[in-house]
């Protein structure tokens, strides 16, 4: 696109609220190729000096039409596609999709499959939060946590690789249960990982929690109140950071989460620092759940009785899970054929990103980067 066209577009966006800019106001384009936007997010900032007066997100660069693809695939064929949405937490996507189709089919996965699902999903939450922490700290200027977190995430990915052969887009679950039985020594390795990662989480905290630069950059930045969170539909660590103790694993348990003991950490101020504390504590709680699940892993089948050709009865179902980013839901309409009539994904990143404008108003330009990081968005999921 020519420069002239970009500028006329910027002007059109900035004149959206007010026809003319004041003399000291300017419009600044950030992205889509910008290292701190975590992918291809373009933000058009309206500035007064260095203060952000408002901003507009331009998204859709990664739009692949996942929902349209779903209508042209069978239920089973579409399963691997969901991994490509939130690609740092592929296992959670698979869980949400499989559970929704199971609900349509009126099938429940066997207990052993549920435990395996919980173990892998929580491992993935750990890995997802590690990616978030590393990149978020890097955006703010702390380079060391990135090396720490990616080093430790490698151990989680090794378990995924051993379990199903893939590291990122795992396609670990099937409709009705799991495809693979656990490998020899799975329990031991997962327990070893838990023992390995707990002191590492303390290490991350040592680097950041009382670090003066970190405090300066995160305390009071990107504040959002609980009421605003609810109005904007922000879920996951964002709403918990603002002091609402709401977690779908507790509120509407699925996949046997009611059997495990864990706490839901919350913040008080709703700023970037509180969301950081919430996510770090969530990592510890995930380890706690994994330990219980491995210790109680029952024997038995890992697949429910599911027909070879899936034809769910006519009807529609919405089901959502607590993904690392927030409420991830699938709304599936079945017309009784082998292909879904409509699949709607309720993406947590997309809805949370909408809060960026109200969180950044009145902040400095440098804080926008911190707020994008603290929202923990994945553009693959925003654009689908």
């Amino acid at each position, binding site marked *: 696109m020519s420069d002239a066209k970009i500028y006329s577009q910027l002007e059109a966006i900035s004149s959206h609220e007010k026809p003319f800019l004041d003399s000291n106001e300017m419009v600044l384009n950030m992205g889509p190729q910008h290292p701190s936007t975590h992918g291809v997010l373009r933000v058009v900032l309206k500035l007064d000096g260095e203060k952000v007066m408002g901003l507009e997100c331009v998204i859709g660069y990664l739009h692949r039409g996942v929902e349209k693809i779903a209508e042209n695939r069978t239920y089973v064929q579409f399963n691997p596609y969901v991994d490509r949405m939130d690609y740092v937490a592929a296992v959670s996507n698979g869980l949400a999709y499989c559970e929704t189709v199971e*609900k349509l089919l009126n099938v429940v996965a066997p207990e052993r499959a549920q435990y395996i699902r919980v173990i892998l999903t929580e491992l993935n939450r750990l890995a997802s939060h590690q990616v978030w922490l590393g990149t978020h700290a890097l955006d703010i200027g702390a380079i060391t946590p990135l090396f720490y977190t990616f080093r430790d995430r490698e151990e989680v990915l090794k378990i995924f690789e051993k379990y199903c052969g893939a590291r990122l887009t795992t396609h670990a679950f099937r409709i009705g249960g799991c495809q693979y039985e656990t490998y020899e020594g799975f329990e031991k390795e997962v327990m070893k990982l838990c023992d390995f990662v707990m002191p590492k989480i303390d290490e991350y905290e040592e680097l950041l929690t009382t670090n003066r630069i970190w405090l300066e950059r995160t305390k009071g930045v990107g504040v959002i109140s609980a009421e605003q969170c609810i109005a904007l539909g922000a879920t996951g660590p964002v709403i918990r950071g603002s002091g609402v103790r709401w977690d779908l694993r507790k509120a509407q348990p699925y996949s046997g989460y009611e059997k495990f003991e864990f706490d839901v950490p919350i913040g008080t101020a709703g700023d970037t620092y509180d969301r950081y504390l919430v996510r770090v504590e969530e990592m510890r709680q995930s380890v706690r759940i994994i330990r219980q699940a491995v210790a109680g892993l029952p024997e038995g089948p890992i697949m429910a009785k599911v027909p070879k050709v899936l034809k769910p009865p006519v009807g529609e*179902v919405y089901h959502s899970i607590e993904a690392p980013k927030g409420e991830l839901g699938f709304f599936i309409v079945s017309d009784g054929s082998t292909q879904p009539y409509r699949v709607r994904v309720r993406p947590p990143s997309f809805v949370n990103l909408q809060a960026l404008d109200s969180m950044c108003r009145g902040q400095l330009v440098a804080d926008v980067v911190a707020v994008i990081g603290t929202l923990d968005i994945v553009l693959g999921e925003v654009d*689908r």
Partner: protein
Amino acid sequence: MVARLKGLYGSGIREALTYQGQNYISVDSSLVHDVLTMLRDDEDFDYCVDVTAVHYPKKEEQFEVIWILYSFKNNVRMRVKSSIKDGAEIPTSVDLWQTANWLEREVFDMFGIRFTGHPDMRRILLPEGWNGYPLRKEYGILQQDKEWVQINLGIESGQ
């Protein structure tokens, strides 16, 4: 709650059903804003989870717009559905839940359904100026706006 809604709106509430333990009501499109307001204010559905649509080209009222609501207080979820004809508009819910802003924009982007009173009814995922609404059933999976691709990307085809 359903009895109360029926008492208030009579035949405007077309059906109220439960499927797989999930409740939904079908509402006439002229009443949908009143019903949503009442659900938010009196029944504590303070969180709008999702706004989406489904296209049924064979029906007379082709589009079904669906609101998925959740109540923090009562920990329940429900769906409100409303059908409209092609080209008809449906009232917005941005005045009730801010989150509906982007969600309704996505419905417009994908289905071409306009929401009356929406503050910013533009495309969100597809580029401005794109021709066609991809999630309509008549839109083919390989179909694209060739003209837009040629002018803006300078290539023959995006396929």
